[in-house]
Structure formats: structure tokens, C-alpha cells
């Protein structure tokens, strides 16, 4: 793929347009990756020039949605990095169990596989009845997906293996009903989800949580935006609360780091100090 179909000035013009016209602010997304995404969209959508791309974004609301969904990376899976969930099961759930009421926020949840994974852990520990899982993402169509609890059947074998690697002892298939090529997850798991669109760049803190997941979202932001979003997460986390980042993300460059203790450094789980 030619990394230079779109010029730097054109990216600037596009980002300014998205912000002015629609309020989507991608200006502080990590530029190397963003440039790749935009190039890829132009190739896949067979757009010969930047002018054409810009015109479609300005004039076609359906295309705008498509563009935003494609420019952000939505790859996810259930029990992604199984050892992280094993650690949560072993070290975090016993603490959460002592609270009368558990609020968890999945920021940048994509299609929700992460949220359902956590709901399964809570259910197996007898904690789901007193939990609420807030699942938010920038993309509206993702959010619809989370609500439906329907995932492609072809992924279930992999997810079942991840579940076992994460310490799962049950039969994973009990959590869904197979309908042709789709796995429909049980309403028990769905009942405790609160699903909404939320933009980490422009929306503010909306609650206090005992646990926040923000995994594989910060890697797409530059250092300035990472810091701003980490502040937002910090403001949304109770004292002694747990913060879970992606396995290649780190708190250590951030100003909020001194307020946190590493609980499981490899798993990127921190606990907020008192």
C-alpha cells in the first residue's frame, strides 16, 4: 500500500472539516496510524483523489458514518489476552465482591466482546446481580451491536479457547444460543449492560466507577490526547478503583501515574491509591 496517496496538508484539511462540520475531533489521533487508515479507506472505497473523499464525507451522511467507523480501529475479541481476565478473576473480583454495588465502565468497547467477557466473569462469581456495566464507544453502530448481544458463530471456537485460558471452568456454549451463523448471548448477561455513545475526546466524565477498562483505545491517540483521556478516566475512577489498559499500553508516561499502584504490571492493571 502506498503510504503517501494523501498528503499531510490534505489530512489537516480533512480533520478540520470533520471537526467544523460534525464535531468529530481526530486532530490528536496518532498520525502515522491515522494516515494509514485514511489511505486504506481510499483504496478499499476506490476513491481516486482526496477531493473525492472529502466531497463524499461532506455530502453523504451515510458515508460519513462509514468513514468514522473505518478510520477508527474496531478489532476486538472475547477474553482478548486471556491471562488478563484470569488475573481479574483471581485478584480483582474478590475485592469487588466486598462492595454492595459494582459499577464498571468499558470505554471504547467496540462491538462489546470485552463487556460480555466481563459479564461472564461476574456471573460466574455470583456478582452480576449487583453490577452495572457501562459500555461506551464513539461509534453509534458499535453501540447497537453491543446491545444486541449477537456475535458471529465462526468466532465461538476461538472465544471458547480464550475463555478456558482465562480460567473458565464451565461449558462456554451455555452462554449463547446458536442461530444459523450467529451466536445470540443470553439475556441474563445483557440485562446489566448500559450502552451509550460517548466520545472520549469531547465528552466529559459521567459517573464514578470501581473499575474502568480502556483497552487498545489510547494507542490510537497522540501523547497529548492520551494524557487528556487518562485524566478523564482518573476523574471517573473511585479511590482504590481498578484501571485496565491494553497489554502494550502504559501509565508510566502520564501525570496520573503517581496516584496508581501496579497490581499486575504485565496485565496492565493498576489500582488507584487512597
Amino acid at each position, binding site marked *: 500500500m502506498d503510504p503517501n496517496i494523501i498528503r499531510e496538508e490534505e489530512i489537516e484539511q480533512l480533520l478540520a472539516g470533520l471537526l467544523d462540520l460534525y464535531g468529530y475531533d481526530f486532530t490528536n489521533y*496518532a498520525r502515522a496510524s491515522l494516515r494509514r487508515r485514511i489511505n486504506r479507506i481510499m483504496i478499499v472505497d476506490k476513491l481516486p483523489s482526496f477531493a473525492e473523499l472529502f466531497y463524499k464525507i461532506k455530502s453523504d451522511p451515510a458515508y460519513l458514518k462509514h468513514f468514522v467507523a473505518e478510520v477508527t*480501529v474496531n478489532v476486538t475479541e472475547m477474553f482478548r489476552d486471556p491471562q488478563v481476565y484470569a488475573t481479574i478473576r483471581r485478584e480483582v473480583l474478590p475485592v469487588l465482591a466486598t462492595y454492595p454495588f459494582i459499577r464498571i465502565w468499558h470505554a471504547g468497547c467496540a462491538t462489546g466482546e470485552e463487556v460480555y467477557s466481563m459479564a461472564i466473569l461476574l456471573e460466574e462469581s455470583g456478582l452480576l446481580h449487583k453490577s452495572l456495566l457501562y459500555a461506551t464507544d464513539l461509534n453509534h453502530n458499535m453501540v447497537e451491536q453491543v446491545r444486541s448481544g449477537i456475535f458471529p458463530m465462526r468466532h465461538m471456537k476461538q472465544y471458547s479457547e480464550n475463555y478456558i485460558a482465562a480460567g473458565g471452568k464451565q461449558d462456554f456454549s451455555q452462554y449463547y444460543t446458536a442461530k444459523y451463523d450467529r451466536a445470540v448471548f443470553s439475556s441474563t448477561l445483557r440485562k446489566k449492560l448500559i450502552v451509550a455513545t460517548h466520545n472520549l475526546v469531547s465528552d466529559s466524565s459521567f459517573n464514578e466507577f470501581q473499575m474502568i477498562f480502556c483497552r487498545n483505545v489510547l494507542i490510537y491517540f497522540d501523547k497529548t490526547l492520551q494524557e487528556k483521556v487518562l485524566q478523564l478516566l482518573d476523574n471517573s475512577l473511585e479511590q482504590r478503583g481498578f484501571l485496565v489498559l491494553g497489554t*502494550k499500553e502504559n501509565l508510566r508516561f502520564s501525570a496520573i501515574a503517581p496516584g496508581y499502584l501496579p497490581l499486575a504490571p504485565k496485565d496492565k492493571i493498576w489500582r488507584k491509591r487512597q
Partner: protein
Amino acid sequence: MAQTTVGIRTVLVVGGSAGSLDPVLQIVGALPADTDAAIVIVVHRKAGSDSILSNLLAAKTSLPVKEVEDKDPVLTGHIFLAPPDYHLLFENRNYFALDASEKINYSRPSIDVTFESAAAAFGSTVVGVLLSGANADGAEGLAAIRNAGGLTLVQDPATAEVYYMPQQAILLGAAGQVVHKDQLPARLAALLRRQP
């Protein structure tokens, strides 16, 4: 021509797939302790394969070896390893960036992604090396390095455990030099040694 340019080499990027472990270890083992270049290695490997490879590399060199985390600084005299299941990019000359988007050439990390990003960030000061492999990944990226004026070396396919990957690069005209496996380590060491 770019291939005869002498001067500061800021980054060495090495890509390989099937059959590349041995040449990678030999190259790393021969790296000079005094170099002003950052060394970046992208090899195809299984997700979750953990720290085995970094340990193998660290046993061969006195240079620090690190599997990259997001926004890690690009440091001279360090060896950086692309983590499994992420594409490794240069955000600019100072920082790495990771990206977990679609596989490219059935691969994540993809060698093309890192090579193209190195060419964009560092231009003619890049040295790109493509080793043994059974996949076409890396050839286009190596061409991007060559087009940006960087120096490109390809393992002689006749000396590669799997000839396909280096051959693709040669067919694409991306190879500045085709080098016998046994000569690669010394050639790279000479290129990277600090200029007096």
C-alpha cells in the same frame, strides 16, 4: 545512487519470517556496541508467544533489547522488537506507535507496515534488511525504503532457508544489495559502527 551514500545511519530495520531466526540471531550477535542507530526487528510470530524471542536476542548482545510498548521512545543503541499481534510504526523520529488493525499480507506485525513507516519518518538514513520467509510481506516496504533513498539489503535467496520472501523483494527491484547469509552480520556491523 543511494547505495553508495555514506553517513549517519539512524535506523536499521530487519524483517523476516520462516527461517529468519538464525540470521536474525547472527546479525544481532555481531552488532557493534557503539552505534548511533536504533535497531528494529520485525519477525512473524504467533500471538502470545511472549518473551522467548527477546530473551534469545538478549543472550546474543550487550545492547538492551525491548519489546516495544505504545509511544516508547526510539533510542539509539537499543534493539526494539515488534510485539506479536500489533503493527509497529514510527509516530515520528522520536516515538514508536502501535496499531492493532487488520493483518497485512496475513501478518500482524507486518514488515511492510514498519518498513514504510521507517521510510516516511527517516528517509535516506534507513537501512532495511529482508531475510528468509515464505510470504510476500516486506517486499513493498523495502521498495519504499529504497525509493526514499535508504540502503536496502536482501538475504541471498540461495542462502535462505525459505527463498520466497527475499526473492519477492528482488523481483520488485527493492534490493540494493543481495548478500550471502554469512556475510550479512559483518556487513551490517560495518554500516552501523559509529563514524569516528
